[in-house]
């Protein structure tokens, strides 16, 4: 595994798809609000059946899911879903407000807006869409996005689509979804695969996200901006990675996937130079139970004694390749396990690269390998279980081995929390799309374009410049712009007389982020309560230093107001006379010998430790100075 890849040399190409959730008054195709609300009032269950597409083809992955007999359970909260989400009523008309935002976005990206918006259905039968399809429409084609470093990346499409239902749990045979998120409008911006490095991919995603936020419609909640990435290296294949929730993950996903593809290309070259051909992998699983008759491996002997069989396949020339790391914490064998789990109920497999281990002896392995007529450079994968099932599982292993001959398989991958990717499903063809016959095409009139152009998006760069003029550092300006408290900041900061904007910005980013990390439920800090805290500081009712404690206290005491909290924390400002009394008391007890500046600093420090949060440091300093002057 190489520690650092030269992305130019390996020919990395990345395209990103950014999904921006909109906070329009209603959902895309019905009149439910776009706020999430999961107080479920009803439940129902469905089975989704693959239908023939226009070309008479059934998506194989979709068919497979259906044949597994999967049941989908839906929870439908009344506050955030109606019969449309339940697929019990035809869709209402396309939300004009959402279309307006998408066109604004498209105009900003110099994208060519379509004359007519045609709503299409994209078949998705994992249950995340009650109808069995997601509604999507192309709003504009082409265009480009200019990055902060002056480079630009071409845009392929700007689409408007409905968000999917949220999965709440997945048990064997039953997937459960919550309908509150289903139907919330998403703007999807797709770039061409012209991005050459992981950090640039992040830059592009950030920039698109910021432009989206500048429309004023993109939600400022966690998970409101999500991304997919299409990633390939020179001799690799375009792999789609879905469900990347955070930008920090995006960079790692691209790094991981680039590494994986380079390793898989190397494996394919090695197999080629060893002369391994497709014919070598056209083999049948073999019953090798005999080789393990008197095994000391508990797992295998238990399996054999309950009547299971052990089947194996020989993988010619694969010795050492199965357990070689292809990316951090990832191997070719991991990919085989993922495929087996996707297509069968078999949970795991054994392979010779990991042997001998788990009580399986070298002798047993040799007996198995001779049954398979395998030689030194070969590997074998073996599985115990019921013959029909393990035969199917081993067939999937062979399928993945065959793919290894040609390099990187064409597939859709998912993204784990640690940014490793995994096999999600085979990649569907274009036949997944067909027209939504329930909604007539929506014309984009010149009048509509004119209205859009009369309220152009302000470039986020210009807004960030404005924040810098308000006294924020550029770093802080970007942070508050990207944060979900940006609206609050904008409405609050210019209004405050004494409190500086940079203090508001750093409190809303730094302090809140730290509290969140420490596990405080900062969602209890409503807009109004946060505003109240800053106003109390601004009006001199408490000191700046109290903000952190107030955030902390009020997020734990959702019923308490600012005044109550200040009292409870003992952070109400002391009257000047009281501070003077404390200064007198503290200074009176002090030894005042020494350098005057040192004495002053020490005295201020001691007084502050008594009155922190209840007096401004500047006032304390002034009174101490005055008191010392008398000496």
């Amino acid at each position, binding site marked *: 595994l190489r520690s650092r890849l030269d992305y130019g040399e390996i020919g990395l190409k990345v395209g990103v798809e950014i999904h921006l959730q909109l906070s329009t008054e209603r959902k895309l195709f019905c009149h439910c609000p776009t706020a999430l609300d999961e107080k479920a009032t009803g439940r129902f269950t*469905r089975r989704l059946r693959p*239908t023939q597409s226009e070309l008479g083809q059934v998506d194989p992955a979709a068919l497979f899911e259906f044949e597994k007999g999967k049941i989908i359970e839906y929870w439908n909260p009344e506050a955030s879903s109606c019969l449309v989400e339940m*697929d*019990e009523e035809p869709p209402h008309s396309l939300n004009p407000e959402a279309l307006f935002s998408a066109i604004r976005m498209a105009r900003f990206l110099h994208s060519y807006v379509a004359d007519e918006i045609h709503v299409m259905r994209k078949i998705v039968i994992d249950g995340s869409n009650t109808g069995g399809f997601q509604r999507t429409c192309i709003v504009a084609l082409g265009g480009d996005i200019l990055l902060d470093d002056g480079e630009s990346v071409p845009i392929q499409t700007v689409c408007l689509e409905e968000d999917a239902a949220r999965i709440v749990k997945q048990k064997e045979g039953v997937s459960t979804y919550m309908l509150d998120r289903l139907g919330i409008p998403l703007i999807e911006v797709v770039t061409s695969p012209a991005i050459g490095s992981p950090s640039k991919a992040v830059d592009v995603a950030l920039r698109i996200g910021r432009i989206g936020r500048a429309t004023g419609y993109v939600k400022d909640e966690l998970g409101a901006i999500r991304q997919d990435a299409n990633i390939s290296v020179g001799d690799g294949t375009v792999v789609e990675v879905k469900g990347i929730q955070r930008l920090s993950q995006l960079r790692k996903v691209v790094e991981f996937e680039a590494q994986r593809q380079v390793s898989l290309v190397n494996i394919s070259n090695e197999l080629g130079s060893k002369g391994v051909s497709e014919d070598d992998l056209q083999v049948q699983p073999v019953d090798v139970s005999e080789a393990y008759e008197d095994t000391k491996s508990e797992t295998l002997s238990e399996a054999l004694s309950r009547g299971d069989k052990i089947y194996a396949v020989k993988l010619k020339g694969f010795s050492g390749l199965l357990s070689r790391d292809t990316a951090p914490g990832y191997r070719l064998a991991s990919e085989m396990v993922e495929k087996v789990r996707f297509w069968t109920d078999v949970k795991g497999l054994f392979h010779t690269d990991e042997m001998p281990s788990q009580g399986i002896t070298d002798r047993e392995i040799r007996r198995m390998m001779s049954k398979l007529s395998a030689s030194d450079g070969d590997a074998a994968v073996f599985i115990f279980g019921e013959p029909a099932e393990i035969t199917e599982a081993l067939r999937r292993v062979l399928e993945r081995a065959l793919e290894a001959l040609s390099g990187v398989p064409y597939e859709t991958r998912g993204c784990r929390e640690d940014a490793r990717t995994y096999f999600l499903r085979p990649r569907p063809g274009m036949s997944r799309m067909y027209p939504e016959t329930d909604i007539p095409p929506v014309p984009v009139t010149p009048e509509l374009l004119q209205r859009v152009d009369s309220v152009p998006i302000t470039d986020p760069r210009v807004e960030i410049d404005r924040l810098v003029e308000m006294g924020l550092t550029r770093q802080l300006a970007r942070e508050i712009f990207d944060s979900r408290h940006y609206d609050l900041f904008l409405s609050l900061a210019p209004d405050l007389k004494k409190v500086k904007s940079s203090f508001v910005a750093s409190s809303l980013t730094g302090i809140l982020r730290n509290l969140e990390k420490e596990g405080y439920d900062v969602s209890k800090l409503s807009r109004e309560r946060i505003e109240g805290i800053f106003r109390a500081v601004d009006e001199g009712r408490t000191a700046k230093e109290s903000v952190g404690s107030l955030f902390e206290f009020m997020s734990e005491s959702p019923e308490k107001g600012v005044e109550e909290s200040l009292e409870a924390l003992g952070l109400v400002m002391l009257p000047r006379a009281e501070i003077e009394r404390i200064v007198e008391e503290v200074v009176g007890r002090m030894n005042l010998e020494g350098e005057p500046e040192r004495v002053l600093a020490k005295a201020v420090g001691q007084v502050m430790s008594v009155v922190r949060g209840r007096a401004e440091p500047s006032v304390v300093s002034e009174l101490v100075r005055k008191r010392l002057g008398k000496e």
Partner: protein
Amino acid sequence: VTILGTGGTIASRVDYRTGAVKPAVSSEELAEILPELRELAFIEPEVILNKYSEHITPSDWTTMAQITADKIESGVSGVVILHGTDTLGYTAAALSFALRELPVPVVVVGSQRSSDRPSSDAALNLISAVAVAARAPFAEVTVAMHENLSDDFVLLHRATRVRKNHTSRRDAFQTIDSTPLGRVKGGSELELLTDDYLGRDPARELRLRGKFNEKVALLKFYPSFDPSLIDFLVDKGYLGFVLEGSGLGHINDRSYRSLERASEKGVHVFVTSQCIWGRTNLRVYDTGRDLLRLGVVPLENMLAETALVKLMWALGNFEKGDEVVEAVKTNIAGEIVERSLGGPQRGFRD
């Protein structure tokens, strides 16, 4: 089991080039879309019509009744009719009257959500309908549609007591003031909800009474109801009409003269209630007693739509006026329920 296609959302496919809806009921296509059917019964599909159900007319009912009778005579275990849902209830009621002494079940089935969407209710409804046609112990015309919003249960409604009560929900069809004959779980297990039915008996001889006379109307009474509408029907040569009265079956006194005139001209006037649930009664209030005097015939708790169909059928199959009235008034296919029970209005335990 014979499957007769007449059109509608169920088992049809959209041609995306022309936007037209094409029936997909060749046996190969059906078997491909619904592989489960093969395990249930030997299937014989046939397209006899291709219409959205709002375009179906009484002469189409005659055709359907004729072909169904032919198929039954040829010895099938049951007949399934695919139908659009808008007027499915009317057709099902018409078949109940046209196919007398049924030896085997006839199941009319539709779908509320189009079959080109993976979430369609078509598959479960059709599979359940075929299961019923092949194996049910009753020999009546029933309507097979989803019981609720989940893909679990399909109810078998008696055709004369069923009504479409929602524009789009998959459980739109409900049995009014009665009990469905049964429900099918998971597309195969039939549970009977009553033992009051005509049993399957392949030896019984079917009598076909498939004519319908279209000179019949259904009028709804409302506060500003204009009696000249009645005069118009009489002058146009209508042979009878059903009035959906208010409450127990009332029509206002402004209409008395027109009603009297209709009676005098031998036009049959029947009354049902626009309340949908409940029984008419013209003896409780003066208005009702007046209407009875004017020759208006109340139809117990018969559904207005069923009454309309039955009147067309009676006029199509009986010559004399008294025979027509007698036929309409008499319960022949479960259209009048004598005992109205308490409990949920859906009419069966849930």
